[in-house]
């Protein structure tokens, strides 16, 4: 109970800061831009493409499919920037500003301080993904109406799926968003880990993004294709398998066990560093 109350305080700190909302605002603008481009420019081209490939037009041009594109394309690269920014700040900024001394002067263990902070950034990450999904879907509904199912096409992951039934399509997309949220927690954990080191908040965010993007670039090098499984970003992209008609659960579970293990390892490493640090003016 006390932990939950303390977590409430941590969330209050996080969500009272203006910079926490930068990502939300940018994504709203981005979603609106993407949809208006779709309506103004893209729709006709895609409908022609759909007809040529015998894909029902109402599937391709539906609000659910648009939500999938918005989430799939924007979250991975753009979202990771905001997760790294917020999680890189969460410990390092308080240390830099001196707040951490006020916190550590209290009868609370460092492990608990970190658990509270980690829980807060994980909640931020998940709610952010939900926010992007909900607002993306809301805007798509306004722009395209409620009709149509879901069309998934991801050549990199060899996925092609069609869900004409709207309820099933919605459920699949919701599941996908949940797994995507879990994937994005890895970026948050990276930022959190670097935030526990004796470095500036901006440096923690940059380090986390560097690791993330280096992994992403390596994963896409042609001669490393057969070793994709060892890259974090490939494992993170496995969320999309949940949208496949026959979900390869063994692969999905394996990837998420690895990602969870990575999250836990990053937390423990961060805690070990944080525990050994001296906090002075």
């Amino acid at each position, binding site marked *: 109970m*006390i932990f939950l*109350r*303390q977590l*409430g*305080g*941590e969330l*209050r*700190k996080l969500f*009272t*800061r*203006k910079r926490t909302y930068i990502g939300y605002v940018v994504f709203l603008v981005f979603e609106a831009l993407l949809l208006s481009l779709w309506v103004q420019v893209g729709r006709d081209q895609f409908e022609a493409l759909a007809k040529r490939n015998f894909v029902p037009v109402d599937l391709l041009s539906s609000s659910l499919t648009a939500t999938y594109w918005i989430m799939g394309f924007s979250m991975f690269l753009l979202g990771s920037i905001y997760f790294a920014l917020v999680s890189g700040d969460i410990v390092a900024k308080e240390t830099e*500003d*001196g*707040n951490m*001394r*006020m*916190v*550590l*002067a*209290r*009868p*609370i*263990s460092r492990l608990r*301080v970190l658990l509270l902070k980690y829980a807060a950034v994980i909640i931020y990450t998940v709610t952010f993904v939900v926010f992007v999904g909900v607002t993306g879907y809301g805007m798509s509904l306004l722009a395209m109406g409620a009709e149509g199912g879901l069309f998934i096409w991801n050549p990199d992951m060899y996925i092609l799926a069609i869900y004409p039934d709207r309820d099933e399509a919605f459920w699949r997309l919701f599941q996908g968003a949940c797994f995507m949220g879990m994937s994005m927690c890895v970026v948050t954990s990276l930022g959190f880990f670097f935030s526990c080191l004796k470095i500036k908040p901006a440096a923690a965010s940059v380090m986390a993004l560097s690791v993330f993007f280096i992994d992403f670039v390596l994963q896409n090098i042609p001669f490393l294709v057969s070793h994709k499984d060892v890259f974090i970003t490939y494992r993170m992209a496995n969320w999309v398998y949940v949208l496949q008609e026959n979900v390869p659960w063994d692969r999905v579970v394996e990837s998420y066990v690895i990602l969870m293990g990575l999250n836990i390892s990053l937390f423990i490493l961060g805690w070990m560093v944080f525990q*050994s640090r*001296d*906090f*002075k*003016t």
Partner: protein
Amino acid sequence: MLSVRKLRKKFGGKEVLKGVSFEVSRGEIYGLLGHNGAGKSTTLGIILSMVAAGGGEVLIDGISVQRDPRRALRKVGAIFEAPAFYDYMSGWENLKVLVGLSGVFEEGKAREMVERVGLSDRIGSQVSTYSHGMRQRLALAQALLPEPEILLLDEPTDGLDPEGIKWFRDFIIGLREERGMTVLFNSHLLSEVEQMCDRVSIIREGELVYEGAVNELRDDRPALRIVASPSEVLGEVAGCFHGEQQHDGRWIFPEETAVPELVKSLVAAGVNLSELTPLRRSLEDVYLEHSRLNLR
């Protein structure tokens, strides 16, 4: 109440604490004096478990900070020189978050405390709009709300205006009288220490060079500035009165010296006396001399 035993600490190979020990009794206001970098803040950091001790131990009411920091710190409230709050939140929200980390935040008690520190009108405002004095009052409120038995103050009056300093001093003395609060006061402002503390220790280059009551640190021996010629004769006469000339030219005589007798003797010896000014020796003078004497 607080027992600091043989604390040692090294930063990057440099030994900043070399076996510092002192005891603070319940209800006592104890001053830790020393210049910047002497090791005062490191000592406080170790007491608060923010800095790992290289050796030695700190006991708060018999509980070891090194072995059980959570239990030991339940009895402690701390205020730092520049208390860092969450500037983007109100004073009230800051209290809620910080006090909540110590356990339960009780609104009624918090309202009383806010009133007591004189922040009722501004507690709902963002901390970024607070003056330094208001921040210190908020710091006091957050430190006192969990009802600690010992208060650690790390240069709390630095940067405050004279009114703020007096308010703070009176508040702390009032706390001791009212609750029997034990206070460890870390400062380089000697006048503050003189007015607040019962006992002091002087720490210099990581070593405790003096410990005793504040009034023992004061020096009541007469100090005089004497401008006279010839200086040799002045020296002879002053020597007869067991006077010692200091490096800054002042003469210090034993406590029982009768200054009128000294003047008579100087005139009788043919000394041409241009100036004889009695000087009050500040605690600062004594502190500087004392620490130097003990070091060499």
